[in-house]
């Protein structure tokens, strides 16, 4: 059995079905246009006709269509070629139209941007012909009163020539304008490579910066003037500082000299009153003893002040030579605290020394002793009878702390910095009872500075005060127990 009729039948059925599908396809712009659709239907109809002719012929029904079959076959290929070419041309035309429209829109957008730009933008050739200028640039290149013809500012011509021949240009220049006025402009120019007639065009952007240049010049003048003023004032301040330093040194020298001169007669006064009170020159009555006691006490008080002044003068003059030695801190502190304990006991104050933590450090024993003595004496002085003063030795990782804590009157926050200054004391009602020149803490501060120690204060009014001396360990001086040192 031949498969030819079967093949023809399949071809006919499929082609008819395809024709039906095509005719049912909605004609729309992109997928299938009406022209394309009906052209295709024509080509398909030719194949349907050929298939139908074959089916009828092989089925033995009729060969009447066979005579026309050849025409249909001859027509089919050119028709398909025509449809395909037509379709491709249509699509290319549509694409070109879309591209043109897109270009037009982008050109309009670009022109809007360029025209609204605050900078002047123009395209010109090296001959000085202006080919394009945005709205801002027209202010500078348009001939006044003329029919919109544009003339290049003379100063721009060499800039354009340079941009065309060499690299892009970025400069600030002063130009004479078309009306003769001179103005400063910041200019950027670069060769326009896409120009159609040889590429001797340049696109130039420029901005009037006359005000800015003037402001910069003014600013520069101000700066120079200010520098001169600062130099002059600095010289004056340095001179003033030198005069103040000289005056301060003179004052210190005077104070030290006066104090030194006081010490000799004071020692005589104290010595002779001691002799008189010892009744080596004969017996004294009660009134004489009382009055001589006042003289002796006042003399001692004055001598203490004089010595404090001399010590302060020595420290501030840098004459306090530091003599370091390996010192067992607990021992040093106890040696200082113990004698003061007698005075504290007389005043009804409990003075304790918690210095069990025996550590050795490099220290100047005399100066460290004086620091501790001043702090403890101060604490005893400003603590009411019945109060407690405690001296503690605390070992921390990088330093040893000597703390002198009392439950005395305390110090207000606003006074805590001031009391370390010379001749400053906290104001209190019973000041008359508390003797001193206000030099103890000042000496402590200066000695700590000299030895490289820190000195801090924690205090609240009515809650007592804690002064802490911070003694750092030397890098090669780890804290050691005395027993270990041995």
């Amino acid at each position: 059995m031949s498969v030819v009729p079967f093949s023809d039948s399949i071809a006919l059925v499929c082609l008819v079905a395809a024709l039906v599908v095509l005719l049912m396809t909605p004609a729309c712009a992109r997928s299938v246009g009406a022209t394309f659709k009906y052209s295709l239907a024509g080509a398909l109809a030719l194949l349907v006709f050929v298939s139908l002719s074959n089916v009828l012929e092989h089925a033995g029904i009729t060969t009447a269509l066979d005579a026309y079959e050849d025409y249909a076959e001859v027509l089919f290929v050119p028709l398909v070629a025509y449809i395909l070419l037509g379709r491709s041309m249509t699509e290319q035309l549509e694409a070109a139209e879309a591209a043109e429209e897109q270009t037009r829109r982008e050109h309009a957008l670009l022109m809007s941007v360029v025209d609204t730009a605050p900078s002047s933008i123009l395209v010109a050739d090296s001959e000085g012909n202006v080919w394009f200028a945005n709205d801002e640039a027209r202010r500078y290149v348009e001939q006044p009163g003329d029919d919109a013809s544009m003339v290049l500012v003379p100063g721009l011509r060499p800039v354009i020539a340079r941009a065309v021949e060499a690299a892009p240009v970025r400069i600030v220049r002063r130009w004479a304008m078309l009306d003769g006025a001179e103005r400063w402009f910041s200019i950027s120019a670069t060769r326009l490579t896409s120009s159609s007639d040889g590429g001797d065009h340049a696109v130039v952007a420029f901005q009037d910066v006359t005000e800015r240049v003037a402001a910069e010049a003014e600013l520069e003048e101000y700066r120079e003037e200010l520098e001169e003023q600062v130099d002059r004032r600095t010289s004056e301040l340095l001179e003033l500082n030198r005069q103040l330093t000289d005056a301060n040194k003179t004052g210190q020298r005077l104070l030290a000299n006066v104090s030194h001169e006081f010490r000799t007669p004071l020692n005589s006064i104290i010595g002779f009153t001691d002799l008189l009170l010892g009744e080596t020159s004969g017996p004294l009555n009660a009134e004489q003893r009382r009055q001589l006691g006042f003289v002796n006490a006042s003399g001692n008080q004055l001598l203490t002040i004089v010595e404090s002044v001399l010590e302060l003068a020595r420290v501030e003059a840098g004459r306090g030579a530091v003599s370091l030695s390996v010192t067992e801190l607990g021992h040093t502190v106890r040696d200082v605290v113990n004698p003061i304990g007698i005075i504290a006991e007389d005043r009804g104050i409990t003075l304790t020394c918690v210095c069990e933590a025996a550590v050795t450090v490099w220290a100047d024993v005399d100066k460290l002793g004086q620091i501790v003595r001043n702090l403890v004496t101060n604490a005893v002085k400003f603590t009411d009878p019945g109060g407690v003063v405690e001296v503690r030795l605390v070992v921390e990782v990088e330093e040893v702390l000597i703390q002198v804590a009392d439950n005395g009157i305390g110090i207000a926050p606003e006074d805590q910095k001031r009391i370390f200054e010379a001749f400053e004391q906290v104001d209190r009602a019973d000041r008359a009872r508390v003797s001193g020149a206000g030099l103890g803490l000042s000496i402590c501060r200066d000695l700590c500075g000299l030895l490289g120690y820190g000195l801090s204060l924690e205090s609240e009014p009515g809650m007592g005060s804690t002064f802490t001396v911070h003694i750092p360990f030397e890098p090669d001086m780890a804290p050691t127990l005395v027993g270990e040192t041995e």
Partner: protein
Amino acid sequence: MYQESEIVDLLMVLFLTPIMVVAYRVVTIRGKRWFAAAYLMTATGYVLTVLEGYVAAGVLNTLEHATYAFAGVLCLVGFTHVFRAARTETEGATL
């Protein structure tokens, strides 16, 4: 032996097919590969028609009609694709 019309068909195929290949690469028809295959089947049928006049008449004739059947099937598939694309586009435009 061959008929004159068959030679004309063959010449048409030989001259126009290269042009159609160029156009085929440009156009953006949905399912265009199916149509290209259908066209090639038809063109092959044209060639076989001429050849069967010289050799293996029976076999080549059978093959010729088979190519037409294949071309019909491929056309149907191709137009189904076009139909779906157009309908989708129309519905999208309506929405």
